[in-house]
């Protein structure tokens, strides 16, 4: 515990620069909303962005390795499959650089709301209807955001 803090102190000793320089912020801001970006929410830097850009094979390989590692570690990846429509990523095809998501019945429209069931049961109702079809989505064509496993609250 204290070793970690000590290493942090040692690694900063005598250095005044911060991890992300101001000029990099503009580059990061330019990336927001670009398809093919993967944004990882990070407690130090705010968020870290990776890119699936076929023109940058080295970065693409790095992004692939990071995605595979995050899935292994229980990170939650969310993919914007259509503008404003997000799905949780269930897997990743490393050979084809594709996220795997499940389509759900709600993709074809909202669940009917005529019966006014008890609110607590609504979620349960939806769980039962979750019979998704796996679908592969090229990582270079969508926005993705990754969140670390939750520590409760």
């Amino acid at each position: 515990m204290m070793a970690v803090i000590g290493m942090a102190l040692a690694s900063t000793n005598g250095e005044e620069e911060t991890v992300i320089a101001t000029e990099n912020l503009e580059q990061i801001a330019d990336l927001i909303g670009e398809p093919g970006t993967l944004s990882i929410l990070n407690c130090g830097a705010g968020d870290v962005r990776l890119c699936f850009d076929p023109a940058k094979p080295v970065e693409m390989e790095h992004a692939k390795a990071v995605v595979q590692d995050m899935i292994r570690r229980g990170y939650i990846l969310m993919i914007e499959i259509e503008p404003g429509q997000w799905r949780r990523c269930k897997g990743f095809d490393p050979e084809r650089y594709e996220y795997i998501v499940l389509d759900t019945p709600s993709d074809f429209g909202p669940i009917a709301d005529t019966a006014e069931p008890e609110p607590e049961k609504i979620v349960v109702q939806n769980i039962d209807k979750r019979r998704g079809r796996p679908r592969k989505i090229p990582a270079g064509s969508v926005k993705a955001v990754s969140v670390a496993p939750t520590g409760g609250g």
Partner: protein
Amino acid sequence: MSMSSGEITWDQVRTGLARIADKDSEWAGIPLPVHGIPLVIEPRHPAHVLNGFCFDDESITRPPTDDESPPRLVNQWFSYRHHATVHVCDDGPGTRRFHVMLPEWGGSRLQYWIRTIGASSSWDADAEWRALESLQSLLTPSQFKSYLLTGSFLETSKRSRVQYLFRKLRPTVAMRGDKKGGMRILAVLCLHPIGYFSETWGGAMVPTDDVIGHLLLMRADEHFFWKKSNIHPTWAAQAGI
């Protein structure tokens, strides 16, 4: 905000932790502990060694003695009669039991509020700005204006028609309209990636990153969002209502 010698700043510590996290491929970073408010960390996270840790001038220099060991919690419940949480404790097996009653009133919320301000020294203001930019790209202009001005915004799930009130530094409130034109609270959903600071509304990440996590989880997989969240009773200080 400098440490005791004045030579090393919290920003430098934060930078050092970011470098360690980068070196160890810890993609979500390592939370920065603060003074007097223990961290609660997700058990699988490598920084789990920081669970329960906070900076404390005395605890850094000497280990706690047996006399300082906290009481053992035997049972706890909420008393509607006293509007308080009753804790039954002892000092270990075979010792005399005693109870402590903590009233759930404005004072508890004020304590959460002030401790949350204490936790804010863990966060980087630049990171919060970046999170705001990210959030803006995810919201409608009116939602983002609402967030900027009130620290909260509403969104109705297209799937379940449940209305969510997403709040900065507070759990998300799930509501549904009743038949009398009002709203009924279904649940208060609390979730912090990596971890959070004990007895605060603050997580390991900057406040708006927590909001982004809630929002995208709700949009992407509403059931999973409910499953992963802790549900606080509306009267509890944790709920922030």
